[in-house]
């Protein structure tokens, strides 16, 4: 059983973080970053995030296993059809990767290969069902597997999305399809998080809320304009603008969200984008 699963099941407040594979084959920086993150429970390895081509997360996640850092392998439906997804899942299990984050994937038009043909042979709900089927020893066509993989599959949710009811029905469907934990898109509006958790709590699946470290007001505006599903409220942008040291203000904002999460959620997923050394400050009580 993965450490992530153990800690979530024991009711501990869990911290996860993330790293991106390199664009290239030099993993020195990525592994150095992973070592800085060794204090968190598990580290997400992103899958061509933002539709920008990088090394396969399967390779980097396997290297993390070798380093003794527990990975959460992100797997999107954008770049692989049902055969490739199943192949990668079997490969992941063979390499000692248990934690998965199953995603649809950002649209290719925003990335560095806008001419790529997006696959979406499966969607995230269907891929979660495929994971469950592999764990039951069968592939999608019902054929038996030699050696059965064991996974701990999670999914993503955007708690601030509107209409709420529509977003929530998909969240519910993901749980029915086997999602055993959720990591959320970055959330900045505590009231909206409260509303979401009030509806989500009865379903009993742990939610790690996404906390993104804002470095300055410019970054906040960039996120609002370019990152789907992320909304930084005007009040926070003004706080960053008015601050003498914007990064310190950003750390304070992140710390406030973590405090909220300690009350509302089962953990946090930190996105510190190059400032991993500030994680202890963000987690400080």
């Amino acid at each position, binding site marked *: 059983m993965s450490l992530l699963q153990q800690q979530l099941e024991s009711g501990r407040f869990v911290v996860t973080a993330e790293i991106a594979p390199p664009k290239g084959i030099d993993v020195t920086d990525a592994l150095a970053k992973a070592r800085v993150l060794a204090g968190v429970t598990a580290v997400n390895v992103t899958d061509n995030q933002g539709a920008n081509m990088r090394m396969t997360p399967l390779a980097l996640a396997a290297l993390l296993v070798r380093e003794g850092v527990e990975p959460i392998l992100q797997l999107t439906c*954008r770049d692989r059809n049902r055969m490739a997804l199943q192949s990668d899942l079997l490969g992941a299990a063979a390499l000692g990767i248990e934690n998965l984050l199953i995603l649809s*994937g950002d*649209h290719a*038009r925003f990335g560095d290969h806008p001419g790529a043909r997006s696959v979406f042979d499966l969607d995230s709900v269907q891929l979660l069902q495929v994971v469950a089927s592999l764990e039951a020893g069968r592939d*999608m066509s019902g054929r038996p597997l030699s050696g059965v993989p064991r996974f701990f599959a999670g999914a*993503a*949710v955007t708690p601030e999305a509107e*209409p709420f009811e529509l977003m929530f029905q*998909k969240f519910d469907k993901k749980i029915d399809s086997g999602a055993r934990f959720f990591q959320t898109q970055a959330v900045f509006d505590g009231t909206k998080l409260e509303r979401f958790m009030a509806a989500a709590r009865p379903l009993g699946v742990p939610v790690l809320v996404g906390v993104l470290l804002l470095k300055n007001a410019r970054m906040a505006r960039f996120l609002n304009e370019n990152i*789907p599903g992320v909304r930084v409220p005007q009040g926070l942008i003004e706080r960053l603008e008015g601050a003498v040291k914007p990064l310190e203000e950003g750390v304070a904002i992140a710390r406030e969200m973590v405090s909220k999460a300690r009350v509302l959620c089962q953990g946090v997923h930190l996105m510190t984008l190059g400032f991993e050394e500030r994680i202890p400050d963000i987690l400080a009580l």
Partner: protein
Amino acid sequence: MIISEQKSKEELLGSLEGKDRLFLVGCAACATACKAGGEDEVFKMQEWLVSLGKEVTGSVIIDEACHIMRAGRDLRQHRFEVEEAEALLVLACGAGIQSISSSTDKQVIGGLNSLFLGNIRRFGQYEQKCSLCGECILNETAGICPVTTCAKGLLNGPCGGMEEGRCEADREIDCAWNLIFERLKKQGRQGVFRRSVQPKDWGKIRKPGRHRIKQ
């Protein structure tokens, strides 16, 4: 209908290089409605070719260029003009171009790009509603196709990029799943939200597609 548009003059110039005598073909169906390959466009194309110093040996507007037999018959009626030409320039969709190329041994130059199977909103404005996937789900989705109108073709609800009911890939357009959700609600139906939709059987559409009506 098949929505098409003319290739750029620049691209056409490249394809026409070294061809001084051309026979022109248009289509009276979709390409006419798209103002890409009807009588007007064939006439304008002829004027442009002449201005380049090329000779147009003749032209024909085929009723439906996608009709292989009819296209062949119409071409035969102009066989002397076709014979005189070094190549045929066809202003029809990819299907129409291939009816022509299968009816002559001469070089066939396509003048259009085919875009999608489209509906007409109003003149000059076309929208894709159906992607001919072979496994129609419209009866459960309040008559709105997620395979086509969701930018990712998702079958089990919106992606995480939906914002205020708008699409992640294009904020100008509505999220297909929000439209489906709203219309089902209006109809008092649960529709597709009642179940998790299984992966599509892409094996149902053979490539290349073929269909024969059973007697």
